[in-house]
């Protein structure tokens, strides 16, 4: 098959979405650590970028498969519009000051494409995805609460020096951040380039006969690099202000929030865990892209519940819920209208 240069133009919307994800969601992983000056921004950005790429490359397939089942967008133009609709929604919501999830935006976009193309939406898959949007933050809170209690109980009993706790917390934040970035890459890469998989221009190749790099992995790598560019070029401001967003939290609480967030994203992305659960006759966890922002908010609220709901900004929490509800609809509508123009004005084959 000959390489079609137009694919670069079509991929641009996905790469833009990746850049937006990197610039915003890196703060979920390293925001408090950088905001509280526990870790320098450059260290955080480099660790975040490297592990994001690794997560996307090695573990990105699981969540992408599920997203593909929701709507297999067969043409590059259709995929372009779906990703662009998601990116515009993310941009509009961010401008309006509403916290936003790229996961919900891309799902809204895919459903918009399904409606436009007359492709029936798999309600079972859609229900699974919708369920995980509620389950994600709840699970993060459920992990954060006992983890925070245990951590605080351990610190009280251990009588560690304040400075020693500080040193351990720094290392903990780096390790948790690396895990978080890996999980974010694994779980959210599907949002960025998942819609381009059916029309991917890449072909698999061997590295010296030892490792086969699939077409999907090449696409994931490209998307992950776009996310990394977002992290390295635009995440600093977001990270510096994230500490004062939902409510001030201590570095230890931040560590708990990042670990909980990362576990949730990892659970919903790990094919290895899925096959292990299946082989042991246990119920499996659906491999679905979940919102990184909502997972971290769930964890922070969980910790706040333990502290008697102190320090939570309810107004902002309300905004998050509103953003949660609006995003998929907005992306779906933009995608539908955009596809109409792309097909009828620009004469593109969108399905």
């Amino acid at each position, binding site marked *: 098959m000959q390489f079609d240069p137009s694919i670069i133009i079509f991929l641009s919307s996905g790469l833009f979405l990746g850049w937006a994800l990197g610039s915003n969601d890196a703060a979920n992983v390293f925001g408090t650590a950088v905001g*509280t000056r*526990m870790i320098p921004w450059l260290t955080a950005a480099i660790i975040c970028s490297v592990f994001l790429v690794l997560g996307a490359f090695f573990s990105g397939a699981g969540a992408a498969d599920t997203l593909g089942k929701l709507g297999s967008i067969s043409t590059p133009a259709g995929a372009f519009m779906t990703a662009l609709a998601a990116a515009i929604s993310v941009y509009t919501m961010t401008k309006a000051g509403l916290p936003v999830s790229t996961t919900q935006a891309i799902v809204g976009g895919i459903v918009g494409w399904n409606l436009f193309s007359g492709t029936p939406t798999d309600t079972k898959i859609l229900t699974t995805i919708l369920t995980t949007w509620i389950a994600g933050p709840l699970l993060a809170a459920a992990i954060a609460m006992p983890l925070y209690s245990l951590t605080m109980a351990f610190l009280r009993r251990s009588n560690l*020096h*304040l*400075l*020693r706790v*500080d040193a351990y917390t720094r*290392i903990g934040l780096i390790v948790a951040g690396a895990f978080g970035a890996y999980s974010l890459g694994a779980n959210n890469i599907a949002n960025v380039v998942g819609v381009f998989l059916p029309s991917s221009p890449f072909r698999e190749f061997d590295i010296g006969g030892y490792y086969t790099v699939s077409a999907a992995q090449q696409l994931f790598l490209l998307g992950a690099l776009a996310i990394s560019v977002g992290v390295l070029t635009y995440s600093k401001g977001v990270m510096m202000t994230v500490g004062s967003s939902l409510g001030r939290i*201590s*570095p230890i609480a931040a560590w708990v929030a990042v670990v909980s967030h990362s576990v949730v994203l990892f659970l919903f992305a790990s094919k290895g865990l899925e096959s292990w659960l299946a082989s042991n006759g246990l119920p499996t966890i659906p491999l679905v892209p979940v919102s990184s922002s909502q997972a971290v908010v769930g964890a922070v609220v969980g910790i706040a519940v333990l502290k008697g709901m102190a320090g939570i900004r309810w107004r902002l929490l309300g905004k998050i819920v509103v953003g949660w509800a609006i995003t998929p609809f907005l992306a779906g509508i933009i995608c539908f209208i955009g596809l109409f123009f792309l097909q009828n004005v620009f004469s593109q084959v969108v399905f």
Partner: protein
Amino acid sequence: MEKLRLFRRTKNLEHEIDEFLSKLSESAILFKLAIKAYLREGCGEDFDSKLTEVNALESTADVLRRRIETELYTHTLIPESRGDVLGLIENLDDLLNYFEGALWAFHIEQPDISAEFKSGFKKLTSMVVAAVDSLVLAARAFFHSPLAVNDYNHKVMLYEKEADKISTKLKSQIFASDMDLAQKMHLRDFVEHIDNVANWAEDVADRLAIYAIKRMA
């Protein structure tokens, strides 16, 4: 390597903070011994040697304080509690200044303390030093087990209250005596020199209680 450096730096700083607190504790003991020596034999050799030792401890503690402050800021350690730790170290350092100042006042002004007031001065000094000792324990607890800070702070408050009672009684006795007004006022100043140490210890304990609450939040 960076992690190893972080732990080495942390260990050094822990050691410096411990050393600083030990200097304060030693100063309190020397202060008590110096006052006893003064009450026994005036501004003699024993008193002067204790004064010299307190001076040396104060200078060492100043060096340690500056080193701790520089380390904390240069390497942005404990960013959440840094302000509290620096405030605590500076406030504790003021206690050393109080000790040194009071002993210098004895050395320069050489107040004439008659026998009937000596026991009061001794009791006051013991109570003040007990308050500082408890404060040092509270400060050590702040770094290792903030929950225990209140137990020691409680003792600081108790000793400060007792010191206030003793100083009030002592001042009443001084002003009820047949001495000249000038001498009465002179001795009152020395009661206050000593009592001020306990007052400041109580102020520091109050702040320490807040720092400990912040650490446990």
